[in-house]
């Protein structure tokens, strides 16, 4: 017996727009782990990440009508996650740190770190604007145009941020 091909994310999203709760559940099942993985890296607070996770999926539902038939679902989903984090900081009256460096690029802490840093720890040293671009572009695999749309910056700027993030990480992860 032939089984029908699984529906694509985009097909499921169109079903969600038609009120199909089962399609929403299937999308949730496919992407919930990667969304939570992104949010945990983004905010580094498990409880806050859980709140954002729930809010992100509710926003997917609330904003389902904004999804267009020619869009890709994953970039759209993560765009919602990015905005949910941004709104959360805004509501809390906290400004997302975009310029201050926890550790200045070009000054890897070699003398204080006899063993190599893990990639996780190194990502945490990235300034916020580089971290955002790196998590979306390098970790989640979105292209420059998609990252640009998610962060509301130009594609060139997205490319530059990802490149600078990688350069920063190399200095930490590959001393000598």
């Amino acid at each position, binding site marked *: 017996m032939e089984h029908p091909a699984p529906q694509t994310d985009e097909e499921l999203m169109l079903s969600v727009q038609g009120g199909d709760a089962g399609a929403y559940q299937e999308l949730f099942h496919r992407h919930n782990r990667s969304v939570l993985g992104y949010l945990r890296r983004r905010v580094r607070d498990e409880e806050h990440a859980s709140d954002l996770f*729930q809010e992100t999926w509710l926003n997917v539902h609330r904003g389902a009508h904004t999804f267009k038939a020619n869009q890709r679902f994953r970039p759209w989903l993560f765009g919602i996650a990015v905005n949910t984090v941004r709104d959360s900081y805004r509501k809390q009256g906290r400004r997302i740190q975009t310029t201050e460096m926890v550790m200045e690029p070009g000054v890897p802490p070699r003398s204080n770190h006899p063993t190599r840093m893990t990639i996780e720890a190194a990502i945490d040293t990235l300034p916020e604007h580089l971290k955002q671009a790196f998590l979306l572009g390098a*970790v989640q695999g979105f292209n420059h145009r998609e990252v640009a749309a998610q962060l509301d910056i130009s594609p060139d700027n997205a490319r530059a941020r990802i490149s600078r993030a990688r350069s920063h990480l190399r200095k930490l992860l590959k001393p000598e």
Partner: protein
Amino acid sequence: MSLDPTTLWLLGEGPDPGDEARAAFLEAKVPPDLAARTLAAMAELTDGAGATSMRSRLQVHRGGRARRLFVGGGAVAALAAAVLLGLPTAPQQGDLAGMTQRGTGADLPALDLRMAVRTDDGVDRLRADQTYGAGDVFYFRYEAAADGWLHLIHATQAGVQVLESQPVTRGHADLARGGEPLAWTVDDTDPNQAVFALVRTVRPVSADELSQALTGVLDGDAPLAPTTLCQAATTLELSCDAQAVRVKR
């Protein structure tokens, strides 16, 4: 010292490390309660009126007396949960043949109901060939092969009643509310024979809708048994598992 393939990939210096390694880095395991909360919140958005009416039914009285499905607490509930955790999926010796219906729907996701009982002798798995009495307490555990809504049903010759409905993710857990296992206390109004069943729906449905649908397809002439109840559910293309209980009056 060389970097691992995942790190090299993230730095743009190596190939994709493969699905497994990539997923291990990208993904985080979502706690079942977080997933359930999220799906429940979504369901409220989708079908606010239905979900609300279903919740309010949890407090209705049955036959003019307080419902005996309550949230168990403390050490006893923990003990019951431990017993349920240890229960084998397959029926053990002592189960009456044919008393437990386990998903006859060919293409339906598997669903498994396990029950424990607390009696004066302690906590043990529920046995279909044993008779229970007033004061004994039943606990429920599920194992579901797919996300969805689970409905705990109590069926007697008098009818079918939905006791509890809640969204779940695939996996196994105690049927619980607020982190505490749900429990049913036997009293002297229980009929001699009853069936507890778990039925899964893809989306939330109201208790009335579900009980009416099941009643509509139940064979009224057939004796009440897990098999007949689950056959009715399967007719509606719903996963089902059920257990019979005998009560001494």
